[in-house]
Each structure stands twice: as C-alpha cells, then as structure tokens.
C-alpha cells in the first residue's frame, strides 16, 4: 500500500515565515497525505493564514507548548498507523521545504526499511546556499554536537547518510516508531529532543539517516529546537537549555547505579564550570549554568519516566551506537581550529602599546631614579614609619583576620566590619609574607615608578606619542598631593594615587574586554578602600561613564560590585550608628593635618603648606604664593584648552573628573570625621586633589595631542613647571625632613616586646597627655597596635561604648590619687603594663597632666615602676599574669556570621579576580564603540570565506586609523570615555554597522570557519563561553541605532 505521510505543522506566529512554509508544503512534488496544524498560543495572523489553507486536522492549543508536546497533541487526533510505511513529517512554521524534499525523505524511508527517521539538510532561510544544521552526534561524554553548522553548501557533505541524531525540524518519522518510542521526551522541551528520539530509535534497532538531497530552509525561530537569534537573552536561554538537556540526558542514559552519583556532581560541576566561564570571560552564562543544574536536579518524575521510556523500547546495547559518536580526535581538531580562530581575532584587536618603542622604558628608568634619589635614606631600613604609618600585623592569619568582618582588635575591641583598606593592606602584606611590614617600605619605594607607569598606560589610551605619554607619566608621578602624602606618611592617599592612574587605564580598556572591566572593578574597590572620600566622585564618574559608553555599559555596570561587597559590613555598621558620613573617613591611623585654603587646594597642596615655597622665598620680595601659582598655571591652562581638541568628549570627561576631584578636596576641608584622642582629624583633601590632578593630566594629554606644532615643546615646558613647583617638597623628601622615617625596631618598649614574644596578647595601657590637660588612654596588645588593626568604625565613633567608658574610668583613676581599685585594669582588660608617654615639652597643661599621672602611678602599690624608656615611663602591674583571659579575643567573636560574610566577600572577589585574568583574548566581542569599520572591505572580507571575515577586524581597525579626520588619529580602543568620537559622519552608517555587526556573530558564534568536509560546526552545547551572550546583545542595539 502506498505509505501515508502526515505533515504536522506547528505554528506559533503568523507572517512571512508561515506564508512561505505553507507555500512550500503546497508545492511539494509528493504532497503529504494529510496536514495537521497545531496552533500553540497562536496569534490572529496565524489563524487567518491557517484557515485559508483548510488543513486536514486543526488542533488549537491555548498554551505555548514545546515542539514535542505540540506534535504529541497532533498525534492524538490521528488514527493508528496502517503500516510501517506511514510517517509523520514534523514541520514548524519556519521550516520551508524545497519542492522535492518530502519526496526524497519518503524515498529514503521506502528504500531502507531499517531507517526509522530521516532528516533533511537544513539550510539558512535567507541564504539557501548555506547549511544551517545538518546532523547531530554526541561525544563520548554525551555532549551534543552538530555535525555541520553554518557552512557554505558546496556539496561537501552530500555523502553523509547514517548519523546518530538530528535536529527536530522537518524530520520524517515512521509513525509506528514514533508511537513505540513515545515521541519526544518531555524532559527535553527545546534542545536535543530530536537527538534523544534518534538515539532511542537507534537503541530500538532502527537507523537514522540524513538525506542531503532534501533541503529545508530553516529560520530557527524557536518553534522547533532552540531559538537562534543574536539577542543576548536568547543566547543565554539557549546555553542554559543546552546544558539542562545535557544533564537530563546524562541522568537518563547513565546506568541506574551511577545516576545518583551523577546527580550529586551537578552542583560541584556547575561551580567548576562557572570558574571556567569566568576565565573565558563569559560571566553572563553563569546563572544559566546553575539554573540548568538545579532545574535538572529537581525535575520531578521526568527523569524516571524518560528512563522507563528508554528501557521499554531498547533492544540493542549502547555499544551499537558507539561508532556514531563524535570521535575524540575529531573533537581535538575542532578545538584546535577554534583556538586558531580566536588567535586570529585577537591579533586584530590587541592594543599595541609599544611600551619600549615609545619610550616607556625611559619613563620607568627616570621614575626609578627619582624614587631612589628621594628615598635613599629608606634603603636598608627594615620598614617605614612616621605619620600614619604603623607596622602591619606579623602573621598572615592576623593580617587577614583584620581584613574580615569580625573582632576589631583596637582599644577594648568590638564586633564590626573591617575597613576595606585593611583588605588592601592584607594583600600588600601577603606579598612580603615573611615580614608583612616590609610591604609598606616596598610601597614607599615603588610608589613613584608604579604611579608613573600607571599614568603612562592611561595616557597611551589617549595618544600614540611617546613624548606625551612620558610627560603625563612624570606629571602624575610628581603630583604635589602625591609627594606630600609620601612625606606625611599617608598609606591610603599614596595607594589611592598610585592606583587611580591604573584605574583610568583599566576603565579605558573595559570596553574591549571583560578582563579589563574586572580589573577596573578591583582597582575601583582598592581606590575607594584606600581613600573612601573619593567614593562619591568615583560613583558619579561611573554613572556618567555608564550613560555615555553605549554598548560598553554592559561591562561597566558591575564596576562597583566588589567595592560594595567589601564595604557592606562597614556601611551597615555606620548606618546602625547613624553616622553615614563616617564612611568617608580616611582609613588607617587618624593623622592630623592642617586644613588648606582654597588657594592651596587649587595648587594641589593638601596639607595647608605652600609646598615648602614659603621658606624658599623668605629672603626675596617675590610672593611665594604667586610664584608657585605661576608654576602650576601652565598645566591648568593647557588642560582647559583640551576642549579645542577633536576628542571633545574625552576632554570634557577628563576636565569633569578634575572638577569632581576639586569638589571632593573642597568637601574634605569641611569635614573632620575621625578623632585621635582630643583631636578631631580633618579629612585628607589630597585624595580629591589626586583625582583632580589626573583629570588635568589627561586633559592636557588630549589638548597636546591635538596640537600640530610645538607639541613636545609645550609639553616639556608644562612638565618642567610642574616639577619646579614640587622642588621644595622633593628636597624635603630627599633630605628626610618629613614625618616619614625609617621604622624603629618596635613601637612599644623593649620590655613589653620581650613579654609579647611569649604572650602575643600582652596588654599595655597607654596614656598620652593630650590637649588642655586631658589624657588619652588606649590599649595596645602584643608588640603594639598595627596599621591593619585600625578601624574607621572606632575612629569615627561619636559616643563611647561601655567598654571605652570603663577604660576611661580606669585610666582616669590610675592617673589620679584615687580610692579606685587599680586591679580593675588587670581584671577587665588583662592589662600587664602601663606606659605613660612623654608629653610635648611646650604644652604646660600636658606636662602637668603627665606629672600628675606619673605621681599617681608611682605612688600606686599595685604597680612596679619598670623605668624610663624611649617611649615614656613604664610600669607593670604586680598582679599581671601572662595570657590573661581578659586580654583574649572573646570566643563569641567568631560566630557563623563572620564566616558567612567572609565567604560571600571571597566569592565575589575571587570571581572578579578570575574574570580579570586576561585569558579572553579573541573570545570577547569588542565593545569599543568607535572602532567603526568602513563597510566595503568588510563585505569583501565576509563574502568569500568566514576565515577571512575573522581577520576582518584587523583590517577594519587599520582602516579606521587611516581614515580618521584631520590627522588627529585616535588610537584604536582609545577608551570607553569616548564612545562616539570625532569621526566624520558616515551617512550610511547604520548599514555599515549592520554589516559589521553580523561579523562578530559569525566570528564569535559557534562557527567553525574551516570548510573541511568532516568538520562540522562548533558544538554550541560544549562551548557555552563561545556562544558569548553579550556580543549578540549589542548587535541588537546597533541595528536600532
């Protein structure tokens, strides 16, 4: 009997796809015997179109069902198959078969009775000479891979017949087999449904074949199989579904005993794969990874049902399909090709810095020489101290404990969030793990070269010219706020200054890579940790950058996340105290400074001095203020002329940063948020000035880069003036007449130090005569308070805690003739020693207080005088015991919350760190907006061969550089700050963009560029990172532009 073919057409949308599909069905040479149309939540257009053709059966489903379910619904209205020859032809609204397609498929089923499923060659909807999908297989580990995808059809695959699996669209299935196998697995709603059916058919002893002569145009609109589209969300969903399908199949195919083991591995695997996703710069796929694992793990009865269905139909062993699996050597070959393609792409995109070629080496050398000249007296020192510098905790455990939420071991101690700065110190201290305090010495010695390099790299994003890069680097390295912070011993301000330029560099690069974006977010966190007063300005800068960076915004949007996560415990703590302003307080040891005037601020002088110029001009009639102003003015003037440059937006953004920095510095002069004894310590305005300075330097670079003549001369004059302005400061530094000095061996008397060797918690009650005859009382544990123990929560406290009141009570009574029980200090705080600091000799009130305290302590029978030391007079409690219980960190300080906070912070930082490792070259789409290719070369590059298209980026960028207007070439990738720079208007830009934008799709999507016959498309399921979501997302944006 003549076999009966029932076409099942699943329709969701009406429109052009459906119209062409219906026409194609109508014009079949061998027309199907019946047409069942399944409407799944179809729109009215589709209804109208369907009613016109009056199908044999008509199933209207009010809900959106998967392709498999829709076909099952159609199958229900059909009769039992009369013979084995009867077949179902599974069509979707977007699969338009060629006129001879059904005939050829049916012929295959007829000629070979063993073939149960025959699949056509799916070709691109708009380009029928390109193969979209053609056959599927699985690797030995069960990953689904396409045999051929997105290749030009030159008949190179026409010899294929037996395959392991198929894509669902337009396959012809024997109706009886369909019924026996139970149709598509409901556990595989979109991906791998037909593959799974094919595998089950094979295990039931049937064969599955592709029919190369049967061509079906396929649009991949998501009715049959996953939706293939450029949108990021589509891609993410496809990746997630692919992974879920793979996991589902793994549970279904595995031997029963192994299935639970597989189930257990899903979450750990998701974690490991997420790490890999970070490394390959595909962070967007991570949620899908976990969603796939979890939904598959808890999919209810789907897996058992699928296992039953498989078992019931199975007649042959798994070994029967082994030869049809993708062979490992073939997979290896595919991987090699992919890597080659990536390298090809990366070559075109890499930012050529030419560090040595443009004189970066000389800048480095000059800054190293300057550092040696300024800090010669620090060489050979064991550490650096003075100002706000203190040693770091001696031991990585203490260092990192102080960086985490938990016990703040300062004074009597309390529970609270750590300053993010302590985290920065922990990182620094871990570099020199054998002696963490050495890290600060290294920071001081390397600060100037590190700052110079950072500015050099940042400037390299704005100019190709070595001289301008060098000038920018040196202006940044010799910035007045930087040198003054170095002299004053302000580790936070120094670190912030060094990192700001690097942050600018990384932020410029964020448009081109996830690695740079993640690095920028880490630097952002570090800068804010080192100088929280910069947080408002940097957040504003971030919002502005988001607004103007167009499609690069995706990578910038997460910029503050590490900073927020690090600071969260501190923020909550300050909100709890109602002292939000306290978040801006400078971390580390509160260090007093004179509040500068507006004039001084405008010159970049944060410490209320005139940069040493007042003593320089003391003998002449020249006003030193005007002299130093005249030296800084050239930089400001040149920076302001940046608005003349073609890179107008860069100029405005840089000048805006300068203005923000100045506003921050001004704000700082009006705030005193932390206290040190009786002194309210003003906020350090130098951090704001650093921001202002980098804005000026970058604006000056933009301005000078646009100059046609005399560029180098003006640049070096500006630099010379700036360097001259800091000469007195530099002389002070070089001669060591600054607060910073080589560190002493200890910060507490040797007697206490010796005790601390045995008892790391030995407690010293330190009394310091303070202003107006008051007394400052602090507790120092072990060998002395360390820099990482400092806490802004403590320094900005507006009220005293109960412990602190008790400490004050005890100290006040010890410093008086009193009936108070002196043993309370031992009992409550485990104090072993009392150290009375020598007062300032010219402060009579302080001398009187010291005298009073000395008399009282001397006359106290509970204390034995140890004697005068370099640090003051020392007494010891007679009842002091080693390892006093009151001196220990209370056990309740290590609660579950401490661990939980640390874990969350470590996960976020670790993920950012992984993301920042630059492994993504060539994997990522370039979001740098101005790399706008001319259209013609691209079309040429694209047409002949995908391989050539991959290299197109390189050509394109070269062409941009050459084609830039009036000779002011901006280098490729010159920054997210400049999303739509000066390029002359291209009239047909959208078209060009559209053409261009298709290119990354082909390049980054899972396409194997090689046209090898045995070489299929890159498996999308196996390589989720390469199905990078974001590049596609932005193409959508561009199309709409």
């Amino acid at each position: 009997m003549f076999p009966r073919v029932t076409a099942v057409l699943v329709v969701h949308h009406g429109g052009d796809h459906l119209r062409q599909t219906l026409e194609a069905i109508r014009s079949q040479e061998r027309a199907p015997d019946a047409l069942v149309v399944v409407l799944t939540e179809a729109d009215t257009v589709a209804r109208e179109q369907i009613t016109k053709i009056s199908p044999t059966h008509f199933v209207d489903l009010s809900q959106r069902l998967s392709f498999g379910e829709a076909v099952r619904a159609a199958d229900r209205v059909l009769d039992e198959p009369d013979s084995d020859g009867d077949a179902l032809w599974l069509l979707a609204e977007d699969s338009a078969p060629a006129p001879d397609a059904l005939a050829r498929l049916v012929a295959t089923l007829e000629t070979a009775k063993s073939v149960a499923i025959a699949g056509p060659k799916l070709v691109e909807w708009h380009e029928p000479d390109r193969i979209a999908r053609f056959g599927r297989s699985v690797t030995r580990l069960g990953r689904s891979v396409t045999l051929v995808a997105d290749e030009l059809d030159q008949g190179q695959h026409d010899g294929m017949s037996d395959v392991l699996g198929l894509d669902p669209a337009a396959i012809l299935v024997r109706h009886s087999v369909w019924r026996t196998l139970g149709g598509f697995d409901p556990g595989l709603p979109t991906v791998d449904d037909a593959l799974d059916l094919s595998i089950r058919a094979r295990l039931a002893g049937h064969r599955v074949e592709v029919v190369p002569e049967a061509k079906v145009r396929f649009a991949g609109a998501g009715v049959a199989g996953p939706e293939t589209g450029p949108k990021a969300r589509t891609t993410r969903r496809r990746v997630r579904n692919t992974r879920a399908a793979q996991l589902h199949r793994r549970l279904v195919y595995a031997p029963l005993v192994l299935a639970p083991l597989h189930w257990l591995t899903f979450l750990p695997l998701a974690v490991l794969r997420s790490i890999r996703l970070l490394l390959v710069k595909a962070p967007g796929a991570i949620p899908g990874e976990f969603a796939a694992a979890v939904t598959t793990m808890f999919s209810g009865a789907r897996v058992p049902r699928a296992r039953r269905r498989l078992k019931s139909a199975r007649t042959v062993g798994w070994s029967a399909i082994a030869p049809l699996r993708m062979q490992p050597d073939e997979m290896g070959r595919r991987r090699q090709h992919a890597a080659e393609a990536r390298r090809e792409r990366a070559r075109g995109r890499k930012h050529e810095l030419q560090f040595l070629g443009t004189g970066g080496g000389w800048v480095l050398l000059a800054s190293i020489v300057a550092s040696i000249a300024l800090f010669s007296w620090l060489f050979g020192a064991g550490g650096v101290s003075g100002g706000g510098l203190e040693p770091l905790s001696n031991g990585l455990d203490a260092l990192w404990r102080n960086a985490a939420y938990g016990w703040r071991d300062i004074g009597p101690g309390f529970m609270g969030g750590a300053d993010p700065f302590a985290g920065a110190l922990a990182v620094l201290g871990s570099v020199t793990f054998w002696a963490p305090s050495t890290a600060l010495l290294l920071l001081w010695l390397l600060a100037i070269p590190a700052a110079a390099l950072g500015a050099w790299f940042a400037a390299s994003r704005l100019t190709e010219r070595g001289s301008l890069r060098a000038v920018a680097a040196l202006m940044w390295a010799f910035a007045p706020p930087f040198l003054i912070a170095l002299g004053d011993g302000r580790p936070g301000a120094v670190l912030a200054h060094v990192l700001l330029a690097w942050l600018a560099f990384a932020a410029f690069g964020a448009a081109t890579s996830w690695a740079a974006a993640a690095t920028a977010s880490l630097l952002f966190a570090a800068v804010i940790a080192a100088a929280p007063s910069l947080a408002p300005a940097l957040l504003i800068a971030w919002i502005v950058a988001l607004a103007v960076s167009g499609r690069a915004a995706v990578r910038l949007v997460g910029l503050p996340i590490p900073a927020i996560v690090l600071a969260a415990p501190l923020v909550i703590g300050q909100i709890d105290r109602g002292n939000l302003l306290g978040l801006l307080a400078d971390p580390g040891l509160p260090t007093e400074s004179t509040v500068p005037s507006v004039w001084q601020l405008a010159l970049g002088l944060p410490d209320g001095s005139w940069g040493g110029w007042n003593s320089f001009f003391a003998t002449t009639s020249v006003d030193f203020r005007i002299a130093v102003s005249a030296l800084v003015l050239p930089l400001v003037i040149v920076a302001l002329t940046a608005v003349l440059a073609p890179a107008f937006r860069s100029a405005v953004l840089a000048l805006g940063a300068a203005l923000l920095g100045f506003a921050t510095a001004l704000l700082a002069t009006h705030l005193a948020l932390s206290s040190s004894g009786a002194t309210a310590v003003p906020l350090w305005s130098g951090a704001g000035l650093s921001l202002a300075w980098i804005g000026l330097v970058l604006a000056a670079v933009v301005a000078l880069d646009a100059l046609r003549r005399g560029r180098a001369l003006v640049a070096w004059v500006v630099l010379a003036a700036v360097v001259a302005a800091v000469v007195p400061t530099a002389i002070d530094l070089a001669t060591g007449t600054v607060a910073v000095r080589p560190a002493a061996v200890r910060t507490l008397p040797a007697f206490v130090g010796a005790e601390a060797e045995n008892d790391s918690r030995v407690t010293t009650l330190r009394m310091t005569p303070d202003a107006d005859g008051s007394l400052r009382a602090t507790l120092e544990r072990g060998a002395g308070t360390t820099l990482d123990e400092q806490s802004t929560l403590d320094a900005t406290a507006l009220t005293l805690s109960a412990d602190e009141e008790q400490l004050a009570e005890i100290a006040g009574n010890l410093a008086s003739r009193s009936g108070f029980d002196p043993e309370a200090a031992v009992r409550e705080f485990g104090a072993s020693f009392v150290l009375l600091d020598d007062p300032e000799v010219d402060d009579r009130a302080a001398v009187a207080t010291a005298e009073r305290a000395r008399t009282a302590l001397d006359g106290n029978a509970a204390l034995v005088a140890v004697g005068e030391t370099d640090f003051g007079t020392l007494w010891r409690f007679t009842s002091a015991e080693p390892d006093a219980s009151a001196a220990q960190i209370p056990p309740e300080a290590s609660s579950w919350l401490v661990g939980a906070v640390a874990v969350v912070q470590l996960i976020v930082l670790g993920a950012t760190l992984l993301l920042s490792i630059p492994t993504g070259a060539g994997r990522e789409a370039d979001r740098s907006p101005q790399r706008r290719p001319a259209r013609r070369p691209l079309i040429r590059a694209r047409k002949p061969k995908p391989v050539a298209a991959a290299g197109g980026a390189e050509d394109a960028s070269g062409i941009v550089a050459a084609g830039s207007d009036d000779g002011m070439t901006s280098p490729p990738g010159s920054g997210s700050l400049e999303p739509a720079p000066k390029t002359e208007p291209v009239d047909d830009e959208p078209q060009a963009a559209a053409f261009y934008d298709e290119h990354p799709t082909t390049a980054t999507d899972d396409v194997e560029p090689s046209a090898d016959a045995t070489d299929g498309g890159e498996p999308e399921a196996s390589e989720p990172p390469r199905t990078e979501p974001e590049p596609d997302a932005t193409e959508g944006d561009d199309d709409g532009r």
Partner: protein
Amino acid sequence: MAAERNLGRRLARIGARGLAVVIAAGIAVGALAAAALVPWPEHRITPPSLVVKPAETGQLRVCPGPLLSLGDDPDEATTASSVGTTSVTHGAVPDDAEVAETPLAAPENPRADRDGTPLALTTEAGAVEAGMLAGAQGQQVSRDTIAGYAAAACDEVVTEAWLVGGATDVGRSGLVLLSNPTAVASTVDVRVIGEGGAVDAPSGLGITVPAGEQRVVSLAGLAPNLASPVVHVTSTGGGIAASLEHTVVEGLTPAGVELVGPTATPAEVQIIPGFTVPVDGGVDATDDHAEGDAFPAVRLLATGDDPVQVSIDIAPESGGGGGSIDATLEPGIVSDVPLGDLDAGEYTIALEADGPIVAAARATTGSPQAQTDPDGDDREASVDLAWTAATLPLLDTAVIAVPRGPNPVLHLANPGDDEVEATLTVDGDEREVRIAPGTTEAIEVEARGVVELDGTAGLHATVAYSGERALSSFPVRPPGPLDSPLRVFPH
C-alpha cells in the same frame, strides 16, 4: 561659492571653539570662586570623652617632725638627732572626721623615741574632701646650738619640690628632710643650685626613702660653702614631703632656725604674702657686697634656660607706697636680692618675670651682730630667722591648722582685679572678710586652732608668727591636682 561656504564653516568652527574655551575657563574660575566665597557647611565631630572624677580616697598629710641638730653627739658627728618635740595641730572639715596620726619611722634619729618622729595624718576614704584636711607644727627651741621658732605645714606628698632657703657658709647648716608616708619606696634626687650655678653632688641622687620612713640629708654634705642655695627635690616611686631645716649660728651663739617648706612651682608670677619684717633696716638692693642673713632679701632662681627680667614689688600691708626693684636673673644661678631699707611691718611681695622663676623671702628679727658685738645692744636680743615662701592660689575652700606659736597672723592676699569676700569660720564663729584687689588682709588667729575658709578662690595665704626670738611662717597650700577630675579620651 564653495570657498565661501568653507570660510563660513571655518569661522563657525573657530567661534565654537573659542566659546568652548571661554566656557571651560569660566567653569574653572566659577568653581574656585564658589569654593572660596560660598560658606560651605562644616562638619567636625567632637571626639568622645569622659570626665573621670577619681574615686574618693583618704587624705594624707605628713609633718616634718621635730627639729634636728647635727653633731650634738660628738661620737656621731654626722648624725642629726632631734631637739625637743614639736607640737602638731590638725583639723579637718567636717570637723567630726576622724584624723589618724601615724608616726613615721626615723631610724637615723637616735632620740626619736623620746622626741617623736614625723607624723602622717590620714583620714578614711571619703571622710573629707580633697584639701579639707590640714595640719601644721610649731616648735620653739633654745639650746646652745640651735635656738628660735620654726613653724611648718604638714604637706601632701609630691614628686617635685623647690626648697628656696638655707645656706652652708660659715655658721649656717641645712638639713633636707625627706618623709615618705606612702606604701611605696621612693627614690629621691636632691639637686642643689647655688650662686655659682648647679652643684655637682652625685651623693644627692638616688636616695632611697623606704615606705613610711624619713631620711635626712645634710645640705652641707652635698654643697658646702654656699651662701644662697636652692634645693630641687624630685622623687620617683612613692611621693615624698620635703622640707629644709635652716639653722644659723653666729660665732658660738645660735641665731635662728627655720623649717623651709616647698615654695610655689616655677612660674612667671609669684606672690609672697605675709612677709614679716620685725625690725627697721636693710641693705640697698644695689649693694653687691651684703653678706650674712641680717637683712630682708628675696632669693630668686630662673629655672628656665634663658635670662629673666624680674620686677619685685614690695607692698606694705598697711597700705602706702611700696618699693619696686628690677633685677636680671641668669639662668641656673641663684640670686639673693636685698629688699632695701624696710620699715618693720608686714609686706606682700609680688614678682613678675618674663620666664619661670622660684622665689622665697628671708627676714630676721635682729642682727646677730647685736649679740656678738661687745658694744651691741643686748646679748639676749631677739634673734630668729624666717623664710617666707611663695604661695599658690587657693581653691574656693580651704582649712588651716594653726600650731602653737607666738602671735599667729593669717595673711590673705588678693592679687586679682576683683574684691574677694571670704568667710572665716573659727570654732563655729563665722566672720566675713573683704579683701580689696591688690591688697592683703592680716587676720589674727588663735594658736592651736583651726580656721575654715570659704570663698577664697584665687587668694594667696600665709600664716606668719613673730615674737620674742621667734619669727616663722608657713604657706597655705591648695590641694595638689591629683584628685581633680580628668578628661579622658579612650580612642
């Protein structure tokens, strides 16, 4: 046509660029102006602190003990043994507070058993306020080697004391009495500064005074042949009370004794109230060659490192014109400045200097020559010597113990600019005293009595005795700052 359009375009571009620069410069100038001119709000935190009022403690005073005489026993020429007993008077407010008398050990004094030892006066914690316990002692002696009247206050312990007085030239001897009533041994350094500068005397350093004992150091042993010593006593460990016994022997005749208590700590302004000159006479201030003790003089030492100009105002209590003397002090050199020819009477000496100084004034009841000179008036002429120390301003309340002695007079000096109305309470009888600014009131008080003062903030007070062969005084000291509230910053 095209050229024109190009030109127009270029002009427009130049104009736009110029405008951009002007705007940028305008914003920059505007930012500076706003920064400088707008009164931006300030936020400066107040560092949190706690004013700690020390827990109440027992009050402690220690009296120097009986007068000592060196070399009374020929076998023990270096031993200072006591000469008679001293009479201690003490009082407290409230007057029902129990005052315990604890004798200190005086192991160096062989006659301690008979004559008694220094006394420590203590009250229970909280029984009296700080400063409201007072004690004083007075002793009249008349021996072959030592004669005269000496009164002294029982003092709080200190860690630093300036004793201005004494001499170690011919016939003069001095003993530094160091009493440690505390529970902690004290290590005392005694440094002597003379008219030639600081005396190098290593034996004066590191003297250990055990808890509850008195040690005596011979001034002559440390610094012989000094006409004008100043003794600077510092202690570590337990505090001490230091005083200097100054005895004068002219020829073989004893010519006076005095117990010099600590004078006011170095300061630019010093007040010496109640300076009693029993007889007319004196030496002109410009006389460089005045020797001996027999004329009123003030002893000055600039404790700083720079020369000091000092103006000495001598104002008679009875009113009328006083004298003023200007002197220049070399740092570290003690100067005795004669106060000129003064009428017998009581004076208040005000010293104003441009650097920190210590000061005390000396007077005698008569010239020792009057005794030794065969043509002298009277071999039995009254001869005694007294040092009147500079005082510190009193607090609002004070209590004074007036020991036995001839004609005790309380001098209340008001160096301030406002009249002070003080209340004296003696045995429950209240008495108002008005002291005009710049004047001193002399109030006769009962010997062996207790005087309670109220409303005396800023006044300076001395109790002076004068009589037949008797001249002495002791300053009324405010309580030390040890008990006062203290602001503590525990950050």
